[in-house]
């Protein structure tokens, strides 16, 4: 796929922040897959399919939720993408119940990409292909980049939905603290300021604490975000 198609897809994704139904299409435009679904998984935002390009994609999501196993769970746990070019053979050993459940369905390959913002693992994107095939390194990197955009949209929407947006920031002085803490986090995780702020917001939400209190802890060094080989984690 030409680089311009990928750029166009990425831009389209950036624009569809508020419309989950637009999250799947760009993946289909760029990658050799038949369908896609986007879902939140886990304790933070609950398990829910936000968007699916077709009924098959939605069903694959649902099965994985019900069975508690499958590529999306592994992607979320490992924090990296999971490629299963042949779902039935090696896949059966890895996900026996899931592979058995889809044995008679037109699904040859599955690829899952985690939805991650900083230390927060919030969901996954599942891609499936009717015909056997895989994603090469470039495709996987492109999907990672698109998943990163979707991750931010999903977290931001979820925080807005529960009323945890920037009003939380309070007075001018506490806003200042949050900006300073944003600087700490962007340096710790090598993120943009916007993403670093979202990390603080998401962390505050997960910890059920005011953003200002989390910001103060970041400045004091009691909360430190660090990049590790197995992903990003927060200590403190």
């Amino acid at each position, binding site marked *: 796929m030409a680089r311009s198609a990928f750029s166009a897809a990425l831009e389209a994704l950036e624009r569809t922040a508020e419309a989950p139904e637009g999250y799947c299409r760009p993946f289909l435009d760029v990658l050799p897959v038949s369908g896609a679904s986007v879902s939140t998984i886990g304790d933070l935002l609950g398990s829910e399919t936000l968007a699916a390009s077709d009924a098959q994609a939605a069903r694959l999501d649902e099965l994985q939720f019900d069975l508690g196993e499958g590529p999306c769970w592994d992607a979320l746990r490992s924090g990296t993408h999971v490629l299963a070019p042949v779902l039935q053979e090696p896949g059966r050993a890895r996900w026996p119940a899931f592979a058995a459940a889809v044995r008679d369905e037109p699904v040859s390959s599955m690829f899952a990409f985690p939805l991650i913002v900083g230390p927060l693992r919030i969901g996954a994107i599942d891609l499936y292909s009717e015909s056997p095939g895989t994603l090469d390194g470039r495709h996987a990197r492109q999907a990672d980049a698109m998943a990163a955009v979707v991750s931010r949209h999903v977290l931001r929407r979820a925080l807005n939905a529960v009323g945890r947006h920037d009003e939380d920031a309070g007075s*001018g*002085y506490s806003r200042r603290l949050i900006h*300073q803490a944003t*600087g*700490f986090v*962007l340096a710790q995780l090598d993120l943009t300021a916007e993403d670093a702020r979202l990390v603080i917001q998401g962390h505050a939400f997960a910890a059920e604490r005011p953003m200002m209190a989390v910001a103060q802890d970041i*400045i004091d060094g009691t909360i430190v975000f660090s990049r590790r080989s197995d992903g990003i984690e927060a200590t403190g």
Partner: protein
Amino acid sequence: MSELEQRPTVGGLTRERRLMETFASLADTLVDDYDVVDLLQMLVDTCAELFDSTAAAILLADEHGELDVVASTSEASRLVELMQLSADAGPCIEAYQTGRMVSVADIRDAPEQWRRFRESALAAGFAAVDAIPMRLRTTVIGTLNLLRASPGALDPHDEVAARAFADVATIGILHERSLRESAVLAEQLQGALNSRVVIEQAKGVVAHTRGVSIDAAFQLLRDYARTNRMGISRVAAQIVNRSLDLDA
């Protein structure tokens, strides 16, 4: 006895000269491509020095009319928080809302509805305050605040100069071309406030990477900007987008 003590007017003349120099350098600044936050920082520093003030701060209103500290003689939370209290219920918000200068010659006499400001100010060692609106025709965009350690009114000559500083700061924020269009006006005001956001973020980056306090980080930013003849907002923006590393 030194000559200076015998003839206090000499001190006064020196001060007039300092005022003139300040206005001259302001005029220089305004015709050039300048950094608004640097300009405002210079103004609060000069105010504190010339008007016998312990501290000075400029607050600007955002699009919702909420006032934020954009420049202050100290970045210490003590002053920034006090200014924010003044912007919630105190001289600052009154000057902003009425468009008139609000002077409190003795903070102990401040009204009850300003209790939180009054108590914090006294605890911080301030005895008198003046809040001067920054106004462009009918629009007030923020306030210039002067704080003194001993009670008493601002010297009338100082008041004239301080008002002129507030006007210059206003012009500095809203360049001439914005006078006609209120949308552009809001944008430029927001630009100054956004610069402040980026400076706070850059303070965080430097505090983390250098392992220094937030205040020390601000000083490092200022020193770097000065040494390299760059505006502090530009230095901050480059640090935040990671294209500049003070350690490098």
